[in-house]
């Protein structure tokens, strides 16, 4: 077969080039990684009718359907219209002009999430709901961004290895009268978290500097002396990445911010990207983009117009720690 296929265009349509010329893998978005199981029959149908009968649980939690032949792409796109509408338009309230031709862009990648407090006893919030709200801010945009949402500082969704990692934390409140001084919270904090609790005269004292906001103390407390403040708080980790050259773990940018702040900064992401990329939505890893702007400029632009809640903490500076598979990575020729 003689191929003349614009693979860039197909990639933007969420069909990824494969080893076999003329075959592609469709990546279907699942923002926040939870949807009704009924959608599986559609996924199965596409895989068995046009794909090679298999599906990959994409590393970004997409349904990835390999082995789709170029000539079937229109049919597939037509068939997945109902899925795109159900997920993007109905669940995420995304504004889309056209759902007939498949996904309009691959720019912002699927936002991954752990199951969060929909199920998990450690989860501090509903990760999927937040991911869906974020979807409305980032999709469909050609500017690249990868996000991951974790229900608690265990970070099962690896928020530390993505452009923006959002981690749910809880402000713990202590009821002195209800505490029986059993020390279970001390053990829990010691075993699972940051060792900030200790006992004094039969009650608990806390070094508030470094509470991870995990909620382990509340989970073990037999009397309900520790409870979570009902407001949901978040920690934002930025600039994590994998890659061949210099992977790195992300660093804390914001701590104890509210959902409004999250919406504000992610809402600013496109303008920030456009500015730094001179309005060309080329693929550049979020971490590299932040590096290109420099942390100070990034901070200024991403927090533009965002009202920080009084509990917020903002990183003054960030010291990245890269794994340098190529040495002298930050030393560049002058005129390049």
């Amino acid at each position: 077969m003689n191929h003349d296929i614009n693979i860039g265009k197909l990639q933007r349509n969420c069909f990824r080039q494969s080893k076999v010329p003329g075959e592609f893998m469709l990546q279907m978005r699942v923002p926040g990684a939870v949807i009704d199981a009924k959608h599986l029959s559609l996924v199965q149908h596409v895989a068995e009718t046009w794909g090679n009968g298999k599906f990959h649980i994409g590393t970004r939690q997409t349904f990835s359907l390999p082995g789709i032949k170029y000539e079937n792409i229109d049919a597939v796109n037509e068939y997945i219209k109902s899925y795109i509408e159900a997920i993007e338009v109905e669940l995420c309230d995304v504004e889309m002009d056209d759902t007939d031709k498949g996904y309009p862009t691959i720019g912002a990648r699927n936002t991954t999430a752990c199951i969060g407090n929909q199920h998990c006893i450690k989860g501090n919030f509903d990760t999927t709901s937040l991911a869906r709200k974020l979807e409305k801010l980032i999709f469909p945009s050609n500017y690249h961004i990868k996000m991951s949402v974790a229900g608690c500082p265990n970070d099962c969704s690896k928020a530390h290895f993505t452009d923006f990692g959002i981690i749910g934390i809880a402000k713990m409140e202590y009821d002195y009268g209800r505490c029986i001084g059993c020390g279970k919270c001390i053990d829990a904090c010691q075993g699972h978290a940051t060792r900030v609790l200790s006992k004094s005269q039969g009650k608990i004292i806390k070094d508030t500097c470094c509470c991870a906001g995990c909620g382990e103390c509340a989970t073990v407390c037999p009397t309900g002396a520790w409870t979570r403040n009902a407001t949901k708080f978040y920690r934002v980790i930025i600039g994590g990445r994998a890659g061949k050259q210099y992977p790195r773990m992300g660093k804390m940018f914001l701590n104890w911010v509210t959902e409004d702040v999250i919406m504000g900064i992610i809402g600013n992401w496109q303008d920030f990207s456009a500015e730094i990329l001179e309005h060309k939505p080329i693929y550049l890893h979020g971490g590299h983009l932040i590096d290109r702007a420099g942390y100070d400029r990034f901070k200024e632009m991403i927090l533009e117009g965002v009202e920080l809640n009084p509990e917020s903490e903002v990183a003054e500076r960030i010291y990245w720690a890269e794994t340098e598979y190529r040495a002298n990575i930050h030393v560049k020729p002058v005129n390049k």
Partner: protein
Amino acid sequence: MSYAVSIEKMDKVLKELKKKYRVYAPIRFEKRGRYSDTDLIRYAEIDSVKDVVYNEKSDFSPKEVIHPITQTLFHFTEYEYRESQIDDKEILIFAHPCDINGIKRLDTIFLENGNNEDVYYKRLRDKVKFVLMECQEDWDTCFCISMGSNQTDDYSLAIKFGEDQLSVEVKDNEFEGFFASEEEIDFTYKFVTANQEEVNLPKIDDKEMLKKVYDLKMWEDYNARCKDCGACTSACVTCSCFTTSDVIYSENGRVGERRRVWASCQHEDFTEMAGGHSFRNTPADRMRFRTLHKVYDYKERFGEEHMCVGCGRCTDRCNQLISFSKTINKLTEEVNRLQKEVN
């Protein structure tokens, strides 16, 4: 006499009552539960009958009103001490029958144990009157019938909650006046007559059998399962253990207070003595102790009834999903087996 009372009217009555009483009922603390986005239901003072959670079991029992989690007994300085004060208000507690019976068990422990009345308990307990709440549902962890604690006549008012109306039975004349202008109805409080959960109590007739029960293999199961957290005893309406200690105010090392704070027999350090020796060293030991205390020891000592009233909160609160009623049933099966072996 019984009356149909609107929520609005009841709130007016409540407002009047609050002049004389502190009124406690199980209320919802939104999102304050053990896990995120779960609620906590526990006793607190109410401002409206709308606050009363009548159709869900509270996580904690009403015992904390009379046997506070942290209670200051007296304050001391270098040369003198002064007993802690409580206010003059009387206390009204909304409770289900099992809890009222549970508080009767506490009375036995605090007021009749060793002919020694506990004054700190008594001074609060003497103020208490109960508002009986109808059990509209037999929750699946309740086993009050098996424990004979599904009924009580120790109440001043009995209430059946409805969407916008209450049926109120007034048993205590003190409260008649509040309802005189209300519509009289034919309402009598209905006690639960059946539980989904049935518990068979062990018959341990002699010390020999008791010794065998001590050595049962079943207890060892709990070494891996029970985490010694003490959630069960905190939730239990009849657990009464506390630790007394002196707290020294840091600004002046000679001034302070003596207080008592709840303790739990499930905690590792409960039996610890000076020198670090402890005589119940494993979760299995402690589980055995608690079980036998609730359905054997107490009755052996005080005669009439078992300590456990079957409210089932220990089961509800155990995050290791250890069911106390199932534990008792297992024990009874084992005792029956042992009995057969003897015969």
